């Protein structure tokens, strides 16, 4: 399996009035054309890792890394223009809540066409056709109708499908999905995951799936990275998750209530200072 993305010793720091906050502290991993999960709590640095790869870290933050390489391109030292041409084209990102990540005053179809025409020279009619095909590919039943709708006129699940369509219309090689289903109902969640799964498999994309839900991630991804306080505490194949060694990983697994398991009270994480060391 060829390596698509190499991350070595990635660090993201935010200067604040009360000193430097280390959001990501030395994260290293490689990604091929596979599904990689990144799991952790709020503030564990999982989203900042994704954003650093995407090039969406706020400008006042400081990013350093030994290597941050996407398919032979050194992401740390490319120009802003090259970064822009990668972003949305070869690397794409799906955000958590379609209510906030879609443009509210632009129809869904126009947003997809805009993405496509930013990166490829295609005629308007060709772009429209491809947008409609993409909407159909994310299993929207009536693409022609949805094309002209605005984001507030569709449900959360439909909005997230439109978001996925917009991100995949350029045929990216790397897709970063930051909590793509957390804002959705459980049943819709699975539909969206199934669509994502098919597209990733058929198009041979690399996927980074960022989530706080360890169980969901492990059922979807091949490999899982568990982050705590800006560091990777454990990397494990999803199918071996029940054999996780690190107490934090085990804690995350056990703290969720399970149907049929009668554990009162629920085990809570006993955070040890050495985990963050």
């Amino acid at each position: 399996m060829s390596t698509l993305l190499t991350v070595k010793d990635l660090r993201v720091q935010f200067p604040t009035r009360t000193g430097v906050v280390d959001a990501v502290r030395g994260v290293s991993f490689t990604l091929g054309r596979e599904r990689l999960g990144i799991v952790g709590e709020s503030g564990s640095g999982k989203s900042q890792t994704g954003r650093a790869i995407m090039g969406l870290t706020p400008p006042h933050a400081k990013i350093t890394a030994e290597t941050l390489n996407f398919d032979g391109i050194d992401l740390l030292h490319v120009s802003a223009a090259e970064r822009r041409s990668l972003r949305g084209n070869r690397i794409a990102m799906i955000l958590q809540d379609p209510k906030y990540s879609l443009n509210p005053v632009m129809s869904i179809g126009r947003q997809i066409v805009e993405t496509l025409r930013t990166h490829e020279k295609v005629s308007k009619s060709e772009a429209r056709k491809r947008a409609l095909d993409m909407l159909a590919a994310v299993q929207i039943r009536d693409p022609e109708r949805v094309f002209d709708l605005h984001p507030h006129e569709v449900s959360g699940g439909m909005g997230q499908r439109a978001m996925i369509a917009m991100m995949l219309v350029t045929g990216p090689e790397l897709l970063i999905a930051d909590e793509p289903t957390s804002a959705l109902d459980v049943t819709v969640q699975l539909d969206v995951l199934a669509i994502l799964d098919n597209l990733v498999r058929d198009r041979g994309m690399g996927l980074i799936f960022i989530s706080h839900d360890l169980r969901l991630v492990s059922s979807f991804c091949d490999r899982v990275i568990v982050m705590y306080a800006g560091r990777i505490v454990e990397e494990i194949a999803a199918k071996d998750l029940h054999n996780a060694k690190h107490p934090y990983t085990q804690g995350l697994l056990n703290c969720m209530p399970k149907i049929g398991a009668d554990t009162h009270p629920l085990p809570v994480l006993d955070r040890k200072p050495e985990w963050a060391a």
Partner: protein
Amino acid sequence: MTTSPVKALVVDKLEVTFDRFRALRGVSLDVMPGESFGLVGESGSGKSTLLRAVAGLAPTSGGSISVNGKRLDGKRTKAFYREVQMVFQDPYGSLHPRQTVDRLLLEPLAVHGFADIEKRILRALDEVGLGSSFRFRYSHQLSGGQRQRVAIARALILEPSILLLDEPTSALDASVQAEVLNLLEQIRRDRKLTFLMVSHDLAVVTHMCDRLMVMQNGAEVERLSAADLAARKVTQAYTRNLLVASEGFVRPGTPAA
């Protein structure tokens, strides 16, 4: 069913209509004192509307609601809010951003004319596991879990007998969710509270509640006990779907584990 004791909450054929949209279509339920009852369903199923209707936050257009044997009509009285308090989903939206925790907790006490304010505030904070050091902080200085604890403290400070919980943990991390759920269970045991809890997460509801109702499109789909659900004794396809969905993603073509 008509014998003692008086039911904590009875909802009978409740209808809620927004303009022409029927959000609730004749839903009935009854909750015994000290019981914990769950409402499950997806967005738009009417589960939150039912909760809000009980609290007097949604307009009812038919049916009735009784709390502790007293039928509620129109505007809720002050006495009602001493009995029934609500905890909302989003602790980022439900706490006043420019009031300290102290002010937030003081307000309900002032409204209801309590005397021993000082003691009650300290006790309420202590009860939700936030020492007195949190008393003069603003909500933006707290984490999501801490905010939800403040919201719970605010609900408990009037010593209600019924707590309405609208997705109290869905905005929180899994690890923090466990802490808040444990806290709620502890409080219910200590104070013999009655819970009516809404969640889209079947696992959370079966963990917290003795009985539950599955809702869809503003109507009841099925009513069952947590034990039945755990034993997979469900009769409706919709409930079974929810049950399957709560077990995570299954790749087509792979046999279910």
